[in-house]
């Protein structure tokens, strides 16, 4: 669906994106995580066809995006700072969208007014920031995009509205295989809806994972031996982390659960325990040395 191939981008002398490479399948919700200044917004704008990359390619349905109106017609971009025409009411803005996006669904627009409960003839600029964001979602969802690109979308929404919006997204993904690309600096905010996660750090994707794989792939193992720890205990094991707590050895290991169990059992430990990890823990252990930025993402 979306293919980003070796995309690089500089703003004058400053390199913002370096060889970014990833792809998103149709009908998935992809979470793009990164600290401030990591290049998330730039990447999203390139994918939406607003900016052009200096190097590399972006394909949507095997077509470039930039200046391709039939592709951009399927993509709606919701920026972190919203824009509406000055003095426009919701109705006028909806009229504009209806005229611009060929897939606009008027029925849906009317139905969603029940969800958002905002007077359609109010001037958008007089609404609060949170309400403006709801209007943006309302318009975006009514445009029936095949791809929805959201930059920090949940900022400024109250928990109830957050839930509603997430439900709407998930519903569209389920019903009509909408693809969602969502950026955030907060893992917890998006972990419940994303099925894929990519971490952008200083302009490069340093980690890209299917969340289901990730959760079943990394394990916390606790073992204890009465005698000394066997020398070859960690041979042929993808060890991410290890810590000794008295006689108990705590380690984080990547691999198939059955294989990991088999491996440790062969050394006949006195205590053996295998536990699942939270997403946050997985990231921290996976990232190992990459440093503080990642912790910020995960908080």
């Amino acid at each position, binding site marked *: 669906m979306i293919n980003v191939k070796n995309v690089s981008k500089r703003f004058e002398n400053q390199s913002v994106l370096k060889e970014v490479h990833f792809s998103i399948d149709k009908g998935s919700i992809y979470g793009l995580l990164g600290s401030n200044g990591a290049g998330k917004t730039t990447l999203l*704008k390139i994918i939406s066809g*607003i*900016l052009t990359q200096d190097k590399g390619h972006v394909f949507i349905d095997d077509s470039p995006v930039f200046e391709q109106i039939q592709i951009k017609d399927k993509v709606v*971009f919701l*920026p972190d700072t919203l824009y509406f*025409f000055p003095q426009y009411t919701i109705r006028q803005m909806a009229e504009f969208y209806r*005229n611009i*996006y*060929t897939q606009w669904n008027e029925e849906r627009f009317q139905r969603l007014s029940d969800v958002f409960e905002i007077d359609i003839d109010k001037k958008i600029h007089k609404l609060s920031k949170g309400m403006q964001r709801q209007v943006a979602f309302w318009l975006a969802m009514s445009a029936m995009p095949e791809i929805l690109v959201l930059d920090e979308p949940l900022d400024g929404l109250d928990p109830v509205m957050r839930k509603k919006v997430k439900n709407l997204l998930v519903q569209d993904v389920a019903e009509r295989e909408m693809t969602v690309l969502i950026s955030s600096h907060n893992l917890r905010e998006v972990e419940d809806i994303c099925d894929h996660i990519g971490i952008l750090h200083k302009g490069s994707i340093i980690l890209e994972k299917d969340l289901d794989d990730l959760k079943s792939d990394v394990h916390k193992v606790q073992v204890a031996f009465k005698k000394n720890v066997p020398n070859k205990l960690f041979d042929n094991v993808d060890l991410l982390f290890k810590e000794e707590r008295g006689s108990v050895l705590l380690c984080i290991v990547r691999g198939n659960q059955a294989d990991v169990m088999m491996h440790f059992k062969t050394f006949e430990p006195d205590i053996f325990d295998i536990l699942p990890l939270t997403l946050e823990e997985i990231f921290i252990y996976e990232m190992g040395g990459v440093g503080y930025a990642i912790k910020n993402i995960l908080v």
Partner: protein
Amino acid sequence: MPSKTSWFNREIIKQSLRNTGWLGIVYFLGLVFAIPLRMLMNYTSVNEDYYQSPSNLFDYQLEIQVFLMFGIPILLAIFLFRYLHVKNAADFMHSLPIKRLNLYNHFVSMGVLILIVPIIMVSIILLILYSSLNTENYFTLIQLGEWVLITVVMTVFTFLATVFVGMITGISAIQGLFSFILLIFPLGISVLIAFNLSFLLHGFPGDYYLNKQFEKYSPFTIVDRLTNNTMESIEILIYFLLSILLYIFALQLYKLRKIEMVSQALGFPQLKPVFIYGTTFCMMLFGGVYFGETEHHFLWILFGYAIGSLIGFFVAQMIVEKTWRVFKNIRGFGIYAATTAIFFLLFQFDITGYESRLPEIEEIQSFYIGDNHYEYEAREDDLTFFVNKKKSYSDPENIQAVHDLHQQLISEKIPKNANEQIFILYELKDGSKQVREFKVASKQSYSSYLKPIYESMEYKEHNYPLLTVDGPDVDLIRFQPSGRISKMLTVSDPKEVSEIIEVIQADMQNQTFEDMTTERASLSFIEVSVHKKMVQLEFKPSYQKLKDLLKSKDMLKDAIVTGDDLRYAVIFKETKVERDPMTQEVDEQWVDEKIQQGDAIKVTEKDDLEKVLSNYSHGDKGEYTLALYYKNGSYTEVGHFTEPFVPEFVKQQLK
């Protein structure tokens, strides 16, 4: 639904109309106020004659019209393309499934529409006025057509120029400023370069270019041509073609433009050095002109270059970097300064050969020589004055003389106190022209070169149009004596007129170089009317034949100031005549003192008085100064004698 993605998008039109439609309304109201309303006010005015009838539609409140003609399109372009300069708006507009070409065409056509509709509406109002009221006296339908055409072309041109600038910059305020600069730039840079070349190149005719060639280089200079009906159709066509070019260039820039350059002074980083060094260069030239024109000294010009380029360099940096702290970038300035210094050195050594370029005598078809280019370019269709038909000289001897003079001028440096100038224009046999203008301390020092030219017939025919007039064509001759005196001589008898013309022509032909360049005051001012046109000339003291003829007819006493018109004259051996500080009249007490001291003589003899009258020059600056006391009136005229015209009796009595 293909219609939605077609070239026309109703909602974009609606949005831009909501955003900028008010400017169209302002333009309409402004024009209504400026023209039809004003016309009605004139129409209903009781004393109709009080208003001079305007020459065309631009003559109605021209200031308002010009203000609107440039102000509205600039504002319109800024507002319509504001979305390029606001980050959120730029992201939003470019995330929509509309091509840039399409967006651009929507906004440009919207802008053109907002400009044209008010003009058309006002012209309809004018048409209604034209047919319903008796307004034929106010304008013709052709004038209305011209007004519509010129106004539309100029506003659309200004609009597109501002759009073009908008594509280059990322800040709306800079867009406004730069578009103003762009519109004035071709004129400004030409003037600056011409001024500076006349400092740097000995003989460069700066004034020739400044006054003649450049006046059409900026749309702002159309102002005075609008009311004179002197705007040529080729000029309008050029603005029309430039508009098309600007449309195309702006579109290409828009396609290349990076949206992230929002709020950058320059939207294309490649332009940064162009802008910085361009500004540095222009400011350097400006500094040179400022100090060069005020101080006329080479060191001051160099100072002007240094200061101007420094200011230009740092101001440009401040604009581009949007910060005050640019002074660390001095290295770039160093490179610039070094490069320019080399260029100046090359100029000093006349690397282009401009200064030493002297056409071969065989190449010269003809030439013109004078103080400046004005007379060379005087229009032949002048309605009031009889104009010289002869524009240039081609006598081989004269060509040789001007060639020698030119050679001499090339070999000299520019003098410190350059008060006069010599303008030379060659028309070469290959059809080209070579123009030079030299500043000189005094033309007298080149008399040996100028004498043969001045005394040649072709030169005289050019400088004395009367020489080409036939006596029978003259209707009237009028002599107005110089000095504060009310008498006057008018001759209209055809026979007498012919006689007089004949002797004047003879006197003119006999004039020597010295007679022609003398400072001696003329005896009277002569107006000759030839078939309703006028020739003006001076009765020079050297016109002996004219004097004799008038004397024989007993007309001389009415034609010039004579000894009988004066009470007396006082001649001082002083370089300055003291005056009363309040009234600026001659200080009589001082005069009496001088006479008593023997430093002045009082002349009362008629013969002596007439010697004074035919030899003095105006003003007091010579070795011998004088004051003339007229019989009627209290006014005293001050003059002086210069060698060799100091009368003998003066020399004897005031040693």
